[in-house]
């Protein structure tokens, strides 16, 4: 009789712990996405632009564009820069290489003239891509090393006369 009660009590504690953990995680996530940068259609940004939070671009950016969070490129936006983001939705034009850690979505109006590197790629009909595309988990590339010449100690040395010849 005591065993089912103990199991029920343990299940209740696990359930409560899960709820508390979920609330904590949502609060953290919410706090992490507070800061939002908006580059409006009437503004041009030049230089090394880096943001900690979400970024929405409706105007023009040239140089570098980086964010750890999500990036949204509007239909009228023109980016002449290498772009790096946590996740991205592209409806405008990018001239430069694009690196996205998670998901890159290109809408029907999106244009990317440069290399793409992402984990997940979604491309709508009508989107334009002109460049090399790498999709999936990226591991650090290891070039094969040239084999070093190791002399075999059991092999008899060549005669000196032959060496001289």
């Amino acid at each position, binding site marked *: 009789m005591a065993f089912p009660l103990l199991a029920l009590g343990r299940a209740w504690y696990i359930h409560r712990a899960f709820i508390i953990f979920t609330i904590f995680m949502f609060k953290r996530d919410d706090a992490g996405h*507070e800061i*939002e*940068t*908006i580059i409006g259609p*009437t*503004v041009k940004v030049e*230089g090394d632009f880096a943001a900690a939070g979400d970024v929405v671009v409706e105007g023009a950016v040239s140089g570098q564009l980086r964010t750890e969070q999500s990036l949204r490129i509007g239909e009228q936006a023109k980016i002449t820069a290498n772009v790096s983001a946590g996740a991205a939705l592209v409806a405008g034009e990018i001239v430069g290489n694009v690196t996205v850690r998670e998901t890159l979505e290109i809408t029907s109006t999106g244009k990317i003239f440069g290399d793409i590197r992402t984990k997940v790629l979604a491309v709508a009909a009508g989107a334009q891509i002109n460049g090399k595309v790498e999709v999936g988990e990226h591991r650090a590339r290891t070039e094969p090393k040239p084999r070093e010449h190791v002399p075999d100690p059991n092999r008899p040395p060549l005669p000196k006369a032959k060496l001289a010849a």
Partner: protein
Amino acid sequence: MYLYLYDAQLSGKPFQHALVRVETRLTDLGIGGKISRLSPLKNLRELIHDEVASGVRTVVAVGDDATFLSVVNEIIPYDNVTAGFIPLGGTSVIAAALGIPNGEAACDVIAARRLSRLDIGRANTTYFLSGLRVPSNQASFELDSRYHVKPNAGSFTVLIRNLPPEGWSADAVGRRFDPADGLLEVVIEPPENGGGLFRRRRQSTPSILPCRQIKISGGKSTTVLTDGERVLKTPVTVDVLPGKLRVIVGKTRVF
């Protein structure tokens, strides 16, 4: 120990009744203190310096936004001094942002003593709490020494905000303008076009760029207005002092 600084305009007859009620309420709450009336002949910096030296730890401005801002400007150098605000004599944008009601009701907020550490902006050597305004469209902006922001041709108003901009809805403000996040927000508002006789509509969405430092440069006609309407000539370097101001806030504050 409390110091109450009354604005010069409160010596007029229309405010006498309101002042008596405020003073009575402060005494009832047991937070009465020294009262000093400001005037053009009084040096606020020296007054605060002397009072802090004699043990004052809370300086409460009684008046409008300009009174509070001038007090804030003088207490910034003192880390152990808290600012308070009792708004009297007109609508106060800063009081609304800090969640402080008008007049007598503000005394309860002071007594509750809910403290918050807010960032303070600095434009060259002038401190500001709510923000700056750059009306000229000839100014150029360098943010965080990394990138330049250029509005397209047209008459733009550029705001550099610590507190949420006046007249913005709660949805538009969101959590972007947090005066305790260690950041200032550059807001570039596009020119307005006429949407009718009684309605004005913006052409497009404003740009909002959070940053820590801004360098403003421009032609001779370019000026920068602080929240106390003090005029600064370019070039102006703006930065943020995180958590520099200790202030008493109300429950209904916007951040």
